[in-house]
């Protein structure tokens, strides 16, 4: 697998590169900012780009913007955005336009080489990856009339894994059940929450995340 790493902090960037090389992943280029990153992606057409969300000049969301650009200009290149923020809105922004072949991981996850390589493999396979911390924060949020209360404990577990971007097959392996069982759970969940089932797994991720995030925020035109 050929990968580009973009992070303006050299310490972190080289750490990631070292880890990837030990895991026998081919790092074809390293970038210190978004412009460099886009240039190397154009030159090398890698399988994936690992992008830090904070990059010069403003150190806010440059990585996110670059990720969008890569996904629209080079559809074959997957992106994995690394973030120090447990910020569902960033994750949603990333998924909204191109829900496939993208991932949003918390930065500390990177040093668990197994998680990193797993996430890379999943995005390059066309899946979506959302950091479990973000999902559990959304699911665990205090609600006055909890719409998740009709769900059984098992269904909640499945819901979280769906939100993390796992396919039915992967969920089945994780929970040691058959894929058919997962499909049944998933159908139940979508029915109980009043969501449209979608065969497309990354559309499914987006639908669940938006649902979990949505009730707390008024619609943009709901201004009193």
């Amino acid at each position, binding site marked *: 697998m050929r990968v580009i790493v973009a992070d303006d902090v050299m310490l*972190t960037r080289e750490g990631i590169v070292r880890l990837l090389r030990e895991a026998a992943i081919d790092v074809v280029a390293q970038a210190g900012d978004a412009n460099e990153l886009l240039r190397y992606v154009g030159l090398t057409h890698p399988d994936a780009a690992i992008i830090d969300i904070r990059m010069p000049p403003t150190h806010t969301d440059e990585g996110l913007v670059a990720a969008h650009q890569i996904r629209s200009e080079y559809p074959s290149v997957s992106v994995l955005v690394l973030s120090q923020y447990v910020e569902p809105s960033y994750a949603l922004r990333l998924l909204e336009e191109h829900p496939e072949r993208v991932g949003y991981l918390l930065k500390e996850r990177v040093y668990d080489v197994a998680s990193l390589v797993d996430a890379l493999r999943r995005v390059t396979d066309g899946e979506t990856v959302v950091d479990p911390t973000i999902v559990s924060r959304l699911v665990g949020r*205090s609600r006055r009339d909890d719409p998740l209360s009709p769900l059984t404990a098992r269904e909640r577990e499945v819901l979280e894994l769906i939100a993390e971007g796992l396919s039915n097959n992967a969920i089945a392996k994780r929970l040691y059940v058959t894929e058919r069982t997962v499909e049944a759970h998933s159908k139940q969940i979508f029915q109980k929450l009043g969501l449209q089932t979608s065969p497309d797994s990354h559309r499914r991720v987006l639908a669940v995340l938006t649902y979990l995030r949505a009730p*707390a925020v008024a619609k943009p035109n709901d201004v009193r």
Partner: protein
Amino acid sequence: MRPLAPLLPLAYAAVAALVVSAARGSQLEGPTTYAGISTTAFAVDLAAGLALLVAASAAIRVPTTAAAGRLAVAAGVVWFAQDWEGWSGGPTLVRALGAAAVPLLIVSPALLVANAVRSQWLRMAVGTGTAAIIFTAIVRALVRDPLLDPYCWRDCVSRSLVVHAEPSLVRALDRVWLGTTAALGIVGLFGGCEAVIRGRAAFRRLRAPILVPAALACGATAGYAVALLRRPLEQPRSAEYSALFFTRASAFAAVGAGLLLVVTRGQRQRAAVSRLTEQLGEVPNALAHAFGDPSVQVAYWLSASGRFVDDEGRNIDVPAPTTERAVTPIIRSGKPVAVVMHDASLTGSLDRELGSAARLAIENEQLRAEVRAQIDSLRRSRMRITERGDAERRRLERDLHDGAQQRLLALSFDLRLARTAAENDGDERLVKTLSTAIGEAQTALEELRELAHGIYPAVLTEAGLATALTTLADTAPLPVELTVTHERFDAPVEAALYVVVREATDDAVLRGATWTSVSVAGRVTLKVEDDGVQRSRPLIHVADRIGALGGATEFGPRSLRAEVPCA
């Protein structure tokens, strides 16, 4: 002398009226005055002179119109001189003085025009012409014997002031007088009309009531002089001369009426200006109204900080005076309290019209403006302090992410490498220790992230209040219902509202609430409610944050409502 001065024109007017009547009654062999040609002419003759003298007596009392009043006295005196000269049977000296004064008819209207129009050449022309006419009139009186004057009609049988009769010199002098009068009259007519037409509104309003009739009187007198040059034998009953008489008389009467109008308007102005004391806070409006100049602006001087402010306490630039805009300082007790910026045509009158009551009002207003300016500067400094605080927190948050967090990440990476090495060496104890260390580093990272987010949520700047509040609700220990506009506001407003919601939520938790509801509506009203026990005192920090933006906060027992003026 001073208190009697205004009465003199009236006394003269009374005497003159009697003389006109007497002169009219004595005309047995054809008219010797215009008053004698008809009752109408008598009434018009009397009205013109009386109007001038009555208006003059009122105008002399007021400093702003005293100069015009004195010219009106002169005009009235000279006007009646014509009747005195023609008073057959009247005292010889009076008739002789009247005859001597008649050539001065043009002087008063021309000077009225010249004084009202601030034009150097006009003044010089009128001054020169006046001097020439006065000189001519004196010499003429000394060399003219009416008995030898072929064109005499008012005083043919009277004795005069003649010292040495020179009939041919008199003819020459008459031409000089009449020529100069015609020239002055035309200059006065056009100079006056031009000034009125081209002047600005405030100038017109102020000067036109005198300027227009005075210019017309100049024109009429010029016409009279031209007629006399062409037909030296004056025949009062002829169509030409009687028409000229009525024109002249109406114009002079109008000068009197115009002067009277200006005087009474001045009284109203003074009354309005002195009412300023009752209209605190409306000094500029009251001045604009009183002087008929809507462009009046007042700037109050703050001596402590050495600057000018308007009535709201905002800084104001006082421009240098120009030919169109004048700047009049208002002095009270020897100290400047304000300047009034106004149309230049008001110059002079304004400072004089402002009585002590008006000055007191302006000083009061200045004190109010000073207080407002101080409040304004305090509010600005409070805003700067909070903004500075926010910027500082923002910087701290970035430093934590870019510094400490990166180091912890590197540390945890190294620990993992070491653990892998230990696993390969089969050193179980070391693996265990390193695993604990990795866990510690992980916890430290999480705590650091929460700390940084608590110091300043980066998402607030980047994605706005709605998103930041949603994240706040995600982590809140109780359900937070949000109804938040997605509109973006200025950074200080968003930061303040975020802090207020956080404080209010923490407060709700402390008061044992099971939910809280937050709404932020456009331009920009924040409401927070909950179901906790009643609040015992307002949240000072919340009130401070909102107050720093010039907003207001209301606290209910379980609610708070904040409004922020949004630029």
